[in-house]
């Protein structure tokens, strides 16, 4: 971006306080996009633990069994509450990014521009519904049990 505008002493006056639907959609889309990029690299980092497993390297897990490095790492991650919670978060982020992406695609094609705020709310509601429906699956075997 090129130089932005700064009006010095009065810069802090007349700022947006209430964001409109379109602005929220933009901010959420950027945010979820960066989260997904961040997840991609974490994902690669975790998967790379499979590299020594390829050579048949084994470790002893907490139960005293001989398992591959990869299986050990993953079962360790899957058994922690915070990781399960992050998985739900990841789903939420991905679903919103997909739905809003479709919305933006329609906007780019010039379809339904008058109802752009409604489609944003719809994608939010749909994201919420899908995430809530997924909680039993993601949280299975943890928390209560």
């Amino acid at each position, binding site marked *: 971006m*090129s130089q932005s505008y700064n009006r010095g002493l009065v810069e802090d006056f007349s700022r947006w306080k209430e964001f409109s639907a379109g602005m929220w959609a933009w901010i959420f889309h950027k945010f979820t996009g960066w989260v997904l990029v961040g997840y991609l690299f974490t994902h690669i980092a975790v998967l790379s633990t499979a590299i020594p497993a390829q050579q048949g390297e084994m470790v002893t897990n907490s139960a005293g069994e001989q398992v591959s490095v990869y299986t050990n790492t993953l079962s360790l991650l899957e058994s922690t509450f915070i990781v399960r919670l992050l998985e739900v978060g990841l789903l939420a982020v991905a679903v919103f990014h997909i739905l809003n992406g479709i919305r933006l695609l329609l*906007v*780019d094609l010039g379809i339904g521009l*008058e109802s752009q705020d409604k489609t944003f709310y719809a994608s939010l509601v749909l994201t919420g519904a899908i995430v809530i429906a997924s909680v039993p699956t993601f949280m299975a075997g943890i928390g209560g049990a």
Partner: protein
Amino acid sequence: MSTQVPETETEAETETEPAGESHQERRMADKAAKREYRESEKKAEDELRAAEESVHLKVFRYDPEVEDKQEPRFDDFYVPYTKGMTVLDALMYARDHYDSSLTFRHSCRQAVCGSDAMFVNGRQRLCCKTQLSEMAEPVRIEPLPHQDVVKDLVVDMEHFYDQMHAVEPYFQSEDVPSEEQRQSRENREKIKMSTRCIWCGACMSSCNVAAGDNEYLGPAAINKAYRFYMDEREDEEELKEHRLRILEQEHGVWRCQTQFSCTEVCPKDIPLTEHIQELKREAVKNNLKFW
């Protein structure tokens, strides 16, 4: 309106009196002005008491040229409410009755000239088109964001005008037509909304992208370009190419991130985002040719 009577009186005096008594004249005029000011203030007080409702305005004040006014502040004005009063009416009342140094732009007062776009209650609005009854109190009036403040509510529009001119908003056809150029009804309908722009600058000021990128053409300028690009009366292929070349640069249509802020604040209800998106598609169609 009330100031007109004493004005004509002093004028009549100066005509009859000889030139030698200029000091006396000046003193008298000074006194008259002061009396007038006191009277208008008292009149406002009376009107305020008589009015059933009054409206509380919080107005941004700032004057970089006067040392004591360099610190931005908010002034409170209580204005007697009359039915149908707009934000601009209230501002004018405040200026005429309380503080004549209150500065803001206005001209036609009917949403045609586009001089009085301001930031009212957290949103860009055209003051003459905004009913006071629809505003929550206190009505907070600030200058447009992202533009230099010249004084009080007046912002520097130079940059906005530069961007408007950058898209060459005029017909450039070289050959002079021999007869009247008719526009088809369909084409008129297509560009109808885009011709309604009044250059108020509300869209540019509301645009998040324009705020961060000062070179971005902005919604108003792109809408202006749309108006000429889509007009069939200028049908030379080279001219269309030329217009697209201006629009598809780095700081042209592709800077738009479809936040719809401009479309939402536009006092003339121009579908700005729609027009920008259409020009984006035109640019792609022009550059991607598989046949």
